[in-house]
């Protein structure tokens, strides 16, 4: 088995601040994902990465940057936090186009 570790678990930021979320997986999966979870809006894809150093934009990429410098890690940056923003960011990984996703436990973001 494997595990996906997201850090930090809770992130409190100020309006306009750049914030970075990190994700590590030890499944040795090629493909990694970042999703944003908002109540009533489901899981929206921000970025995904098919392999090391690859980046693909999802439907919600505006306002975010991502980085995949190693196969095992995938980081997400909120370029300018929005006031009163509150969401959970979920990292996931899988091996192969037809396979299931494995999820981390999430980073809960609050912006003051």
């Amino acid at each position, binding site marked *: 088995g494997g595990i996906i570790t997201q850090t930090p678990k809770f992130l409190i930021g100020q309006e306009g601040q750049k914030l970075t979320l990190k994700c590590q997986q030890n499944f040795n999966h090629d*493909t990694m*994902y970042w*999703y944003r979870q908002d109540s*009533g*809006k*489901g*899981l*929206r*894809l921000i970025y*995904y990465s*098919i392999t090391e150093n690859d980046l*693909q934009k*999802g*439907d919600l990429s505006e306002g975010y940057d991502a980085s995949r410098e190693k196969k095992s890690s995938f980081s997400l940056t909120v370029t300018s936090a929005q006031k009163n923003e509150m969401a959970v960011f*979920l990292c*996931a990984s*899988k091996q192969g*186009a*037809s396979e*299931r*996703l494995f*999820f*981390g*436990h*999430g980073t809960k973001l609050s912006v003051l």
Partner: protein
Amino acid sequence: GDSVTQTEGLVTLTEGLPVMLNCTYQTIYSNPFLFWYVQHLNESPRLLLKSFTDNKRTEHQGFHATLHKSSSSFHLQKSSAQLSDSALYYCALSGGYKVVFGSGTRLLVSP
């Protein structure tokens, strides 16, 4: 682009009644994979079901679904709801490496 549409919002049921959560999709891929994920309170989503070939039923933990390409559907069903089935259910579409989710359906089962 790819999209998934689910039964909206909240579905409330009495224990013992059948469950049916709808999922339809749009995709350019001729052989998409459809999934149902379940998320219990304070947990992350985990896989419940994955589609097989067209018109073939897949089952797990009492739930079942059948991919119907003709109607672009992958509805989730269970014959008898249990209290422990109360959770958030997501239908997801995988075409290539991109995976998109529907907006989720919250199922609440009461005694």
